[in-house]
């Protein structure tokens, strides 16, 4: 396949500065997106402003091959693995990524949504390998700790982000980035914006607590059993692939996470006083 051939051709091709492209560093993981199209690179720099780091040494590299314009696709991306190569596909892109060489290529329409989905998928796969995950959740740093607010659509992720006080740094209102580290977990800011259409702050902090959001008549924190936490957490983790080994790994990661991170229900009424309970 032509795209696979181009992965092979990339072998040994280093020094990203010799070709056009942008290094986007999310969660402390720099990914170089190589493209000779200046307009596309400029669009990437705008979209991921705050997460572009030309000085970083890329851990992963993708060659971007732009197709003629296509409408952004609403369908779910299909993700599968054959040997060491991952394949991601949707109406507006086709990507292949060799997890062993850490190089890949994307053939995509010149819209930002395709590369955004590719980045989400790649990060979810990289995180899964090390015991972390992407979570449908808002998150913010306050008093040196990160707090993650997860819940189903409409539970209040955007609302809790909008209500954050000035001494809280919002990491995301949509997709939380959770990495396993030696002493627990860290939450990182992401540029994956939700309804606020606001890129999160490129910061990170040790994870203090996980809250399951519910709207209610008063602000209160309610204890919750591990038995309830695990299914609720798994339900909100982003699964792009049904690869058997990946699913098992993420399943185990969820149990490990619950054994180490405090979790509770956060019932809140939509005003800023809810933040008195946080941090």
């Amino acid at each position, binding site marked *: 396949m032509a795209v696979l051939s181009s992965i092979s051709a990339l072998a040994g091709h280093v020094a990203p500065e010799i070709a056009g492209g942008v290094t986007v560093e999310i969660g402390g993981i720099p990914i170089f997106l190589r493209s000779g199209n200046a307009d596309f690179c400029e669009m990437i720099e705008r979209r991921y402003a705050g997460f572009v780091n030309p000085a970083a040494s890329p851990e992963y590299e993708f060659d971007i091959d732009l197709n003629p314009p296509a409408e952004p696709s609403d369908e779910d991306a299909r993700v599968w693995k054959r040997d060491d190569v991952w394949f991601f596909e949707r109406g507006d892109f086709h990507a292949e990524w060799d997890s062993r060489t850490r190089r890949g290529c994307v053939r995509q329409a010149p819209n930002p949504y395709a590369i955004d989905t590719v980045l989400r998928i790649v990060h979810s796969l990289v995180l899964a390998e090390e015991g972390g995950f992407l979570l449908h959740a808002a998150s913010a740093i306050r008093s040196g700790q990160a707090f993650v607010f997860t819940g189903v659509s409409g539970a209040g992720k955007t609302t809790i982000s909008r209500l954050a006080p000035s001494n809280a740094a919002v990491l995301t209102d949509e997709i939380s980035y959770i990495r396993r580290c030696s002493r627990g977990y860290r939450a990182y800011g992401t540029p994956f914006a939700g309804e606020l259409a606001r890129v999160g702050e490129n910061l990170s902090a040790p994870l203090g607590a996980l809250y399951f959001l519910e709207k209610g008549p008063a602000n209160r924190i309610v204890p919750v*059993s591990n*038995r309830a936490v*695990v299914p609720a957490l798994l339900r909100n983790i982003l699964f792009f692939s049904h690869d058997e080994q990946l*699913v098992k790994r993420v*399943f185990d990661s969820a149990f490990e996470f619950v054994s180490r991170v405090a979790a509770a229900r956060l019932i809140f009424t939509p005003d800023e006083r809810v933040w008195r309970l946080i941090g």
Partner: protein
Amino acid sequence: MNEIYIARSTAVASRVLDGEIVIMSAVDSTLFSLSEVATVIWQAADGRTPLSEIVRSRICAEFDVAPDAAYRDAEAFIDDLARHGILRVSSAPISRDEPQVAAMAASIPVRTA
């Protein structure tokens, strides 16, 4: 009555949590949280013990339930899990080495069985 044999699929991740089993299908990421009775059936699903024997010696012996009702409930339970590739069901004993056919099903969030 034709015997039914059931075996746990290897294409699942499972853990005991507070005495109950949580299972995730690797086929479609469906999550099951098993009740006490369902947990007993899952643990007894060795591919060699007929379902009728599991119901008689485990379910009826450990829970206050009539055999016919217990068997009907067990059948419904295993049908549900089999659809998601979590249990293998056969009219003959199932060998561990027997190739597994993954059941394809639409993903649904969390099931309690």
